[in-house]
């Protein structure tokens, strides 16, 4: 069930007028402006038909643009500042979310949150990268880039899921694990690696969903799952487009080209077979209708969880092993 507003939410959800603020939305912006002027000038409804036509045109144009996004345009939507965050989905899809804190070793990481919740009368463990709302919160959340403590808190909660037979649901939305000096000192690589090994053998159903940005090892660190889903306008990449561009093009201004070359948009990743399912988004992106976006995701989660629950734990783990075992493209040269 889609429950009401989360405590913090995107501005659109708060009823703020919808803006077309991305570069490729220029035609939409123009048309919306035209409609706005018409509304002001023809307040007395001198020409209601023209108005209706323009609105329909806007809707069709938006549908058309969003059905044919390029890879780089998808990156922009996936990174949209108003895109629903993990907590938007958690509060709308799950009941009784109880956030749990700390890695029991060093600290608590607000960039990677986790806790227990109820999903269709069943207890689940939820993990998610949290990017934050607005400048201050985003800074607090480190823009969704976890430190080792985040991955170790995740490790602890994964173990808890395994111990008490709670299914695990992970929401992926990170530019990557944070590349800081302290992160090297406290073992960012080890923290991620340990999660990969643990998730591979966890005897409970695991579903991972890329809700925005799936950035590199920082995303993979909580997404070794039985089912990997991606929202229609999300991305999942081996390296941030900017990083790839600065290495392979020697200039991070080539990020759009790098994104295209690495084929990182949800539909392109889906074509490789690495992703199991695409979750539809409202026209114009999840941020234009977070409630609808959450309800699409809820349906997908219900479907996949119920199909995974058919398998006994040993079979589930073996199927997961085979799933990852079979990823790769190579040939025998002899």
């Amino acid at each position, binding site marked *: 069930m889609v429950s009401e507003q989360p405590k913090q939410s995107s501005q659109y959800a708060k009823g703020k007028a919808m803006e077309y603020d991305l570069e490729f939305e220029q035609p939409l912006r123009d048309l919306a402006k035209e409609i706005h002027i018409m509304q002001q000038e023809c307040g007395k409804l001198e020409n209601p038909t023209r108005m209706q036509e323009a609105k329909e045109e806007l809707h069709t144009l938006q549908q058309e643009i969003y059905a044919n996004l390029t890879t780089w345009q998808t990156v922009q939507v996936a990174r949209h500042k108003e895109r629903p965050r993990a907590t938007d989905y958690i509060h709308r899809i799950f009941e009784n979310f109880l956030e749990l804190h700390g890695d029991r070793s060093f600290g608590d990481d607000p960039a990677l949150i986790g806790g227990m919740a109820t999903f269709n009368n069943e207890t689940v463990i939820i993990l998610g990268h949290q990017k934050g709302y607005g400048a201050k919160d985003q800074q607090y959340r480190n823009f969704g880039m976890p430190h080792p403590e985040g991955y170790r808190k995740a490790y602890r909660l994964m173990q808890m899921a395994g111990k008490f037979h709670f299914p695990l649901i992970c929401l992926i939305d990170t530019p990557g*694990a*944070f590349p*800081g000096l302290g*992160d*090297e000192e406290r073992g960012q690589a080890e923290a991620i690696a340990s999660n990969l090994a643990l998730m591979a053998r966890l005897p409970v159903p695991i579903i991972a969903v890329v809700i925005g940005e799936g950035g590199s090892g920082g995303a993979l660190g909580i997404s070794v799952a039985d089912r990997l889903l991606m929202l229609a306008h999300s991305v999942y990449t*081996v390296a941030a487009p900017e990083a790839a561009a600065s290495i392979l093009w020697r200039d991070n201004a080539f990020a759009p080209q790098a994104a295209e070359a690495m084929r990182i948009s949800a539909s392109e990743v889906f074509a490789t077979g690495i992703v199991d399912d695409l979750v539809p988004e409202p026209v114009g992106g999840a941020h234009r209708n977070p409630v609808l976006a959450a309800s699409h995701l809820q349906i997908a989660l219900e479907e996949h969880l119920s199909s995974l629950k058919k398998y006994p734990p040993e079979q589930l783990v073996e199927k997961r092993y085979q799933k990852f075992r079979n*990823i*790769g*493209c190579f040939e025998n*040269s002899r």
Partner: protein
Amino acid sequence: MESVIEDFKKTVISEGARQLRTSPKNIVVKCPECKEIILGREYRKSLKVCSHCQYHFRLTARERIELLVDPLSFVEIDKDLVSVDPLGFVSQNQVYAEKLAQEQKKTGMKSAVVTGHATIEGIPLALGIMDFQFIGGSMGSVVGEKLTRVIELALHKHIPLLIASASGGARMQEGLYSLMQMAKTSAALAKLSEAGLPYFSLLTNPTAGGVTASFSMLGDVILAEPGGLICFAGPRVIEQFMHERLPEGTASAEFLLEHGMIDLIVQRHALRGKLAQLLLFHQAQSQSMVETTILHTQNTQKKRSQSPSSSAA
């Protein structure tokens, strides 16, 4: 992830160029660290370690295998697996498919890792040895597949595993396929761990990105050669993010040891001995366990034959 390669390009090129200038006979080599000139004979005798500053030059996979295992004991597997270009990847002035062909020709290797099994002091083990020469040792489908197969070989033969890493990270040209190799190799290692088989991870210069954040850091025992760069993000990336200069030695093997991330730093000439010692610990324990089991079974049998209740039954 692969950004570390960038940090290394300079040294790679200069090191490579210097070796080229002195080849084919390798009469003299200049150390990139202390700039001293080393005689080729001395250089080979010291296992490519600078006799002045102990700088460890990079070894090829073949050289490392020769260094570590009993002579003629190495049996290679999957040597013909080669990368394909699943994404049709084209960057600025490089077509990945062509790059692969060039690298294969240049290095005489088919991929960035050599796998197989061998013995050290007569004790069998499975090995995966990476080679930085081949596209910066980056991990794509082939590296992931070959390592997974050698982990599975260790499982089937019930023998210990050694992986020596030398890599800039995941190979960007194969996109998400590369990232997923991290999960694939880690999953195989988790299975190996469940089977109670030891995995020794050796980190060599450099080990970075997705390779560090997967199989490299999962060793039961993690060893490193001195001075090597070992990190998740490279120093250049960290400096960009932190907006400050990093102190000398950040993300080196010594830095990792200091922060509790690895077990031991081992000089190259001592590596084989240390590995043999580790293998012997495990061999001794499994032998003693076999003996205990035999003793236990014998005792139970004895008890059974002596006990009146069992004879009555």
